[in-house]
Structure formats: structure tokens, C-alpha cells
């Protein structure tokens, strides 16, 4: 059998757990770099306030919701990784644990996003 064509790795839930962990971590890291810059504007309070007004528009609020989902997923899946590293029962149940991670991410992310989007839903901002 030639190795070249037929070796596409198709993992199952573990592969998706890894892919989402990597993407969410990457996004949160770049937000952190941006966040250092926006907070450091505090020494020019007027500029700082203008930037934070900008954070209140709908596009950046949706971005905030994305950040919430990324943070939740990365935190909870990270906890799952720690459990799998140190606890044999977690290794045996890693798939169930991952489904738990996805469930809690969605269950906490939706109400959180609702709170973030509420000023827009109530028509206070555009």
C-alpha cells in the first residue's frame, strides 16, 4: 500500500477537541495582545473612552460573544486535558467529558451572550 495518498488522519471527537482548543487559544491570545494596547490607552482617558464606546457597537459585541465562547471552551477543555493527564478514569471517559465541555460551553455561552447583546436587543445601540 502506498503511504502517500491514503494517510489522512480522521480522528473522532478527540480530534475535534484538539482543533477547537487550538483555534480558541489562538484567537484569545490575539485578543489579549489587542487588549493590552486598548487598556494602555488609559493614560489618555479621552482616547480610552472613545475606544470603549467603539467596543459597544453591535459588531464588536458579537466579537465579545465569540470571545466568551472561546474562553469557556478553552478553559473547560483545558480542565478536561488536566483530568485526562492525571486521572485514569478521565482517560476512559474522555469522550463523555468532552461532550460535557461542549454542553457547558453552550449552556453558559448563550445566556452570557444574551446579557452582552441586551442593549442591542432592547434597541439602545445600533
Amino acid at each position: 500500500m502506498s503511504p502517500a495518498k491514503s494517510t489522512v488522519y480522521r480522528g473522532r471527537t478527540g480530534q475535534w477537541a484538539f482543533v477547537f482548543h487550538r483555534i480558541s487559544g489562538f484567537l484569545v491570545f490575539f485578543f489579549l495582545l489587542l487588549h493590552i494596547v486598548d487598556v494602555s490607552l488609559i493614560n489618555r482617558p479621552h482616547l480610552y473612552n472613545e475606544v470603549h464606546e467603539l467596543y459597544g457597537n453591535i459588531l464588536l459585541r458579537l466579537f465579545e460573544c465569540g470571545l466568551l465562547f472561546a474562553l469557556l471552551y478553552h478553559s473547560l477543555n483545558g480542565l478536561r486535558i488536566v483530568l485526562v493527564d492525571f486521572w485514569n478514569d478521565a482517560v476512559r471517559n474522555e469522550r463523555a467529558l468532552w461532550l460535557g465541555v461542549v454542553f457547558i460551553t453552550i449552556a453558559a455561552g448563550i445566556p452570557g451572550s444574551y446579557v452582552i447583546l441586551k442593549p442591542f436587543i432592547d434597541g439602545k445601540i445600533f
Partner: protein
Amino acid sequence: MALREEATERPASADQSKPLLRPRQGFETWSWFFMRVSGLILLFLALLHFSITHILNDVTDTDAGFVARRWDNPMWRIFDWALLFLALFHGLNGLRYIIDDYVRKPANRAVTKAVVYSLSIALFAYGTLTIITYRA
């Protein structure tokens, strides 16, 4: 994990009093350990920080006055700096894994790392300076 697997798979005939063969504890072992420890602390710091600044308060309320009130208390400065330090180096180390996975040519890899490390460490220094020197 590997250590534990070895422990469970040791043949009964092995001398149980002898210590297990341990892999060499190099940089990557400490990197693995740092990711676990910083990750566990960040779980609390990051989610608490997000809850305060995005859920309990609206993002438009976290204006300059909000920061002035918050940083009046040195404990919040320490909290914010701990979050900055742990998140930045946890993230930078994660990005190092990503670069090693996808940037395969040694020269490209060296350049990519040089740019990413310089930018991150400069921003870490900038953020640290902001937290320390801020006066309301």
C-alpha cells in the same frame, strides 16, 4: 501520564523497590507543567475577569472612571497583572507549539518565532508598565 502508564504496566517480576525509569526532565517537561498549572489558575482569573467586565458591567460602562476606581485598590492591580503574566506566557507557549507544527523550514521558523516573541514580550512590558505607573 506516561509515568503512570509505566507504573501500571510494570511486570510483577520487576524489582518494586527500584525507582521507575524517568524520562529526562528538560525544557519541554517544564513547558508541559507550566501549561497545566497556569491553565488551572487562568480558568478562575480569566472567567472572573470576563464576568466582571462583560457580564456584571456592560462594556460601555468600563470607562476610564471604572479603571480609576478599580486600580485604586492595589489588589486589583495584582490580579490584573497576574492575569496578564499567566495569560501572555500560556498563550505564547501555545503559539510556540502551533509554529513548530506548521512552520517547517528552520529559517522561516526562526524568523516567525523572533517576530512573535519580540511582539509579545514588548506588549507584556508595555502592559506591566501601564499597570504599575497608572495614576488616576
